[in-house]
């Protein structure tokens, strides 16, 4: 497995080619192709896209919705920004194909408030696609119509969670919903809704053009396709890289130019912290869930600084709706500071806080509280020495 540019290749397939091919297929065949590709959502959670589309397509209810999650807020992630800047044509084409597949004529891009400067470029691409009849009324002479609007977020990390995002679009606080019902049955304004990440939609035209087998062969096992990674931190060439699924984190770091590694944060603040000894681990949903963010820390970095920064982030971004997340993150931050302040000096004293981390993983309502303790567990376990040994239970 290695670096391979498909979504970010210099030579791009003609705009509208995949849409044209899709419209010559039945809706069921489009969904089938996406499902067979085994593509899993590129936002981080990794739900199979084709399964989601199949459920929404089969759901009863009028005015189905196609929503693009462009609320890229995971620390260290900027790959969707690149796609929105340079490949908006493929994004809109992927959303349109999604609309055709599930029977929807209305798309919304929920764009994070921090990216307002991307709006004019995306709207210009939209105009171009409308002028070519790839978007708008009666697309390519068929009776299928589809259009996309942009709606802005207002600065809330939790709105990257799909039901929070839907709440926000409905003009409410971005607090996660109880599930079920799932958005595919009852999403935006109670309509059947698919919410997919920017990269997921951008990948769709390539799957339609080249087929699901081609896509499967790009990856490894059940982790198919290529994946974009935003690399930052102590690295020579920070930026966005496209690699085959199943590549190792070491391969990625070699291409980006990394000499001195103490730790790597994979998947953003909510992801996994790995040590220099784990660089042969594979970027895949089975091993290191890829997300979109890779942050490198060299040996001069104090990992407790990193932990405190991440936990401050989670304390700030927890929506406060459920107690494990609202209270838990504050306690973990207090604990990290107590370790630094010399008030906690043994693994034994840490036990209740590792149990708290478990409670948060099990008891939080959404992905935020379920994943925010990861950095605490990983960093304390792997990088902090106590007189009675390394941290951990």
């Amino acid at each position, binding site marked *: 497995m290695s670096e391979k540019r498909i979504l970010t290749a210099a030579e791009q397939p003609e705009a509208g080619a995949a849409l044209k091919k899709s419209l010559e297929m039945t809706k069921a065949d489009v969904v089938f192709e996406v499902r067979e590709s085994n593509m899993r959502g590129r936002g981080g959670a990794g739900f199979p896209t084709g399964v989601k589309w199949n459920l929404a397509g089969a759901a009863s209810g009028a005015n189905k919705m196609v929503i693009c999650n462009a609320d890229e807020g995971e620390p*260290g992630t900027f790959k969707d920004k690149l796609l929105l800047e340079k490949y908006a044509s493929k994004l809109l084409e992927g959303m349109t194909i999604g609309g055709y597949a599930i029977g929807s004529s209305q798309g919304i891009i929920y764009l994070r*408030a921090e*990216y307002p*400067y991307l709006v004019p470029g995306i709207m210009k691409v939209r105009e171009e696609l409308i002028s070519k009849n790839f978007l708008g009324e009666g697309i390519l002479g068929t009776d299928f119509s589809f259009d996309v609007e942009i709606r802005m977020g*207002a600065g809330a990390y939790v709105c990257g969670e799909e039901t929070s995002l839907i709440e926000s679009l409905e003009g409410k*606080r971005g607090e996660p919903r109880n599930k079920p019902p799932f958005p595919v049955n009852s999403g935006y304004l109670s309509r059947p809704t698919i919410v997919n990440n920017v990269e997921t939609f951008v990948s769709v035209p390539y799957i339609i053009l080249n087929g699901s087998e081609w896509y499967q062969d790009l990856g490894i096992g059940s982790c198919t396709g290529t994946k974009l990674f*935003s690399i930052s931190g102590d690295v020579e060439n920070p930026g966005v890289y496209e690699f085959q699924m199943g590549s190792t984190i070491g391969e990625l770091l070699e291409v980006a130019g990394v000499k001195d590694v103490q730790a790597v944060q994979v998947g953003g*603040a909510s992801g996994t912290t790995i040590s220099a000894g784990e660089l042969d681990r594979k970027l895949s949903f089975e091993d290191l869930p890829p997300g979109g963010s890779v942050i490198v*820390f060299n040996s001069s970095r104090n990992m407790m600084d990193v932990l405190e920064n991440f936990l401050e982030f989670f304390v700030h971004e927890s929506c406060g709706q459920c107690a494990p997340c609202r209270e838990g993150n504050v306690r973990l931050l207090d604990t990290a500071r107590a370790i630094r302040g010399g008030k906690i000096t043994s693994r034994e004293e840490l036990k209740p806080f590792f149990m708290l981390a478990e409670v948060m993983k099990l008891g939080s309502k959404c992905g935020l509280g379920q994943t925010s303790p990861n950095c605490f567990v990983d960093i304390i376990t792997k990088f902090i020495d106590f007189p009675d040994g390394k941290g951990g239970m």
Partner: protein
Amino acid sequence: MSRKPEDIVSAAVVKHGSGREAVMGILTDVNRELGYIPEEAIKAAAKAVDVSNAEIYSVLSFYSFFSTEPRGRNIVRLCNTISCEMNGSSDILDAIEKELDIKTGETTADGRITLETTSCIGLCDESPAMLINDTPHTRLTPEEACKILAGLE
């Protein structure tokens, strides 16, 4: 001469509609034009979409980009998440606070600049970075950040 809050809400309703789902668009328009969302706008928005004032306040208080306090003509948002932090964003914050003689969250006496810190703004590969209103500024040094701020109207 800026428009009255009620007039901004009326124009926003024409653009976004008067359904509940128009709330974010209406609040965003007011917040962008005035820098904050005054009580008059909360009342007008509540009336337009037919919910209570408290409901609108509840929504706007959730989002970090919305403010109920008047802010400066320019809003500076300096990223304090890890990649920017590792590349010196706290030195930049110190320099800006000293230069403007305000603390984070405050506005200069002349109403020119409000200084805020923000979670990751997706500019990690060009860190340290900040947004001034809608515009990103990247690969900052303390000197350069202060120079950019000096040029703001």
